[in-house]
Each structure stands twice: as C-alpha cells, then as structure tokens.
C-alpha cells in the first residue's frame, strides 16, 4: 500500500511511530539476546 505523504510533518509522525515500535522491540530483544549469548558461560549471571 503506497501512501503518499504531502507534508514532512505527516511523514515524521508515521515513520517515528514505526520507529518507536522498533525501539521497544530492541529494548526487549537486546537483553534476551544477551541472555542467549551468555547462556552457556559458567555461572556467569549477568542480569
């Protein structure tokens, strides 16, 4: 679906909205990945 943005303002509301969702995903995903990354480390409790 191609949406046409006529103003920078609308474009920013749209793109920032999606970006904020990605940010939320990153904040959840990064710690989880770190747990995965260090999961086999001997007794190395990092969080």
């Amino acid at each position: 679906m191609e949406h046409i943005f006529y103003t920078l303002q609308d474009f920013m509301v749209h793109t920032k909205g999606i970006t904020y969702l990605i940010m939320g995903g990153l904040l959840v995903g990064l710690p989880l990945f770190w747990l995965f990354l260090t999961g086999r480390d001997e007794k190395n409790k990092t969080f």
Partner: protein
Amino acid sequence: MGLQDTIKDRLSNNGLIKNRLMKSNLINNPLIQKIEWTPINIATAIILFVGFILTIARFFGGLGTVTNLDDNNPWGLWIGFDLLCGVALAAGGYVTSSACYIFGLKRYHSAVRPAILTAFLGYALVVFALNYDVGRPWRLPYPIFYSPGTSSLLFEVGLCVFLYLNVLFIEFTPAALEWLGLKKIRNFVVGLTMLLTIFGVVLSTLHQSSLGALFLLAPSKLHPLWYSGYLPVYFFISSMFAGMSMVIFEGSLAHKYLHHKMDETHLSESDGVVLGFSKAASFVMVGYLGIKLIGLSIDNNWHYLFTSWGLWFLFELIGFVALPAFIYAVAAREKNVKLARAASILGVLGIILNRLNISLVAFNWQLPLEQRYFPSWMEIAISVFVVTVGIVVYRLITAYMPILYEHPDYKHADDSNNKHGHEED
C-alpha cells in the same frame, strides 16, 4: 546498632504485613507519634496548608487565577523549575547506579539507594507538578496510550519519563520489600538490577537530552547564546554533573539531619563518594564548558558576549559552572569533603540557573519588558509546596526503610543472590 536490632527484631518474626505496619507505627513513627513542633516542622505544616489552598484555587479557578502565564508566555515556573530542574536534579539516580553497577565502581554502592530514592521522588514530583500545569491532567496518559504525537519531542519526554518512573519505582522497591520482609520478590527484583540500570541510562539519556531539544523548534524565541543545535547534548551532559552535585548536596543534608539512620558502611563510604563524585563532576563540567565554547564558535555568536545578555551568559558559565568545577577540583585534590559540599551547592544552583535561563529568562527575550513573564507568588508557593512534599516523603521513607543503612537480613545477601554485590573483598 540499637536501631538495626530493633528493625531486625521487628522483621524477623514474619507476621502479617498489617501487623508489622501497626507495629512499626508504634515503634518509630516520626510524624504520628512524636510531632515535635520545631520551627522546621511548623514551616512545613504552613507550606503544606498554603499549597492545599492553592491547589483548590488552581483546579476550581483555572491557571489564570494562580499563575502569571499568558498567551505569549505559555510556560512558566512550573515547567522551568518543577519540570526542567526537577528532572535534571533527579539525574543522580542514573549517574550513581550506572557508576556502581555498569562501570563497576562498587565503592559507591551505599550511595545508590539514597540516589535512587531521590530520583524516584524527583520524577514522581515532576509528574505530580505537571498535573498543576497541564490544562486537563486526566488526559496525561493520552500521548502514550491514545493518540501518540510521535513527531513531538514532548512525546519523547513524556514516554521516557513515564517509563523511567516505572524503572525507578522497581529499582526502589527492594528497600520497601526488605522493610516488609518479602524476601522472595525482593531477591527477584534485585536480580533485575543490571537490566533496570541499563534501561535507566538509556531512558535518562533520551529524556534529559529531549528536554533540551524541546526548545529546538523555537529558534526565534530563545536567545542565540542559549539556543544551539547542541541543546540536547548540553542538557544531557549537564544532567550528569547536576545529578552528582545533587547526590553530594543531598548527602550533606542527610548527614546533618539523618546521621543516626546511617550504618557504618554508609558512613565509611560517604567521604569516598563525595570525593569521587567531585572529581567526576569537575571533569564533566570542564568538558561541558568546552562544548559550550564549541557551540559559541559553531554559530559564530561571539559578538553577543559583549551585550548584557552576554554578561548574563558568562555569569552563568563562569560563576556556576567554571567556579564549582574549580572548587570541586581543589576539593578532590586536597581530599576536602567540606569544600566539595560547598561546591555542590554552587553546582545545583548553576543547573537551576541554566534551566531557568533557557525556559524563562532568555526565552521570549525579544518581547518588550512589560510583556515578559515573572512568576506570581502563588506559582512560587506551589513550587515550594511540591518540593516540601518531596522532603516530607523522603523523611518518612528514610525513617522506615533501609535507605541509609543496609538491612541486617540482607547485608551479605547480595553476594549470594546475585553477582553485583557490594562487598569488594
């Protein structure tokens, strides 16, 4: 020692929470049991009473009845002081916890809890004060849950403050859970320390800087000496030494009035915290001066320095950044705790001056004098009221909960339960 024993006694027999609350009320309740009508307490009571009356005036008469705000000056003291200064001075939370947990400076461990408490109270008060300033406070959740205006920096600030308030609350809960004797939940929350600390730094970086970025879209209203593309960076960097100065300042107050609440670890570490933070604050301040200079140069604003606005700008930078930086440096070199505490007062005042300059003094600088804003006594009274509420709650919490001392049941628990304990050896 005696205090710890009573607390241990009180907490060791794990009865009902209610039971315990009643008991603790009987044992040491500084307000209910022995309200001593000292001058400080009388002043507190008067401020709270006046604040209550003004609250009624605000919510039944509208902003117009209590504030000097107008259409040209939509933001006044409640934004300039309560929000901007409140958030900056509550930066001690993320600074201290990241120093201790992320950068591994374990010797600051005893400073973390008081700093987290101050930060939590600070942010809670910021949100509390916003309810006065905003037209329809019950809609404050709107930006996050109903109609997010993602292009706004205020949205960013609101989201981060909301999230960070939650993070601070969770970071603070171990103290309350220890007080209540809820060992399991407490240990679970303590296990989250690292995650919460990193979240805290991320969120703080964002909203501290975004508070400065709020003014980016008003280049025509803010004086060029204060307006800069670097505003978000300035706000973030200055929040660091604001936080450190506040930790030192608050520590000296606590030593004066709450000395009896502190345990040996806290007392023995506190001088190290003061000197360590003076050193750090001093260096960050000098760095801040450096980037301020870069800001002047990059926008070619030198010629403004020779106007009266320039004098005021230099007064802020030299009197309240360079001077405290120098005093901190001397204090750190000579291991002079008293001197560091004196510098912290300057540092705190400097941050307040900077935030007020940007939001009130240098804002709308082009308007004729009669259209400029000056807060009404009622606005000032509400701000004083908000700060007083904070102090009262701080006193209550430090009276009950293990903030300035470690709970005897958990003294070595940190070592066994998670790896970021406080014991160095």
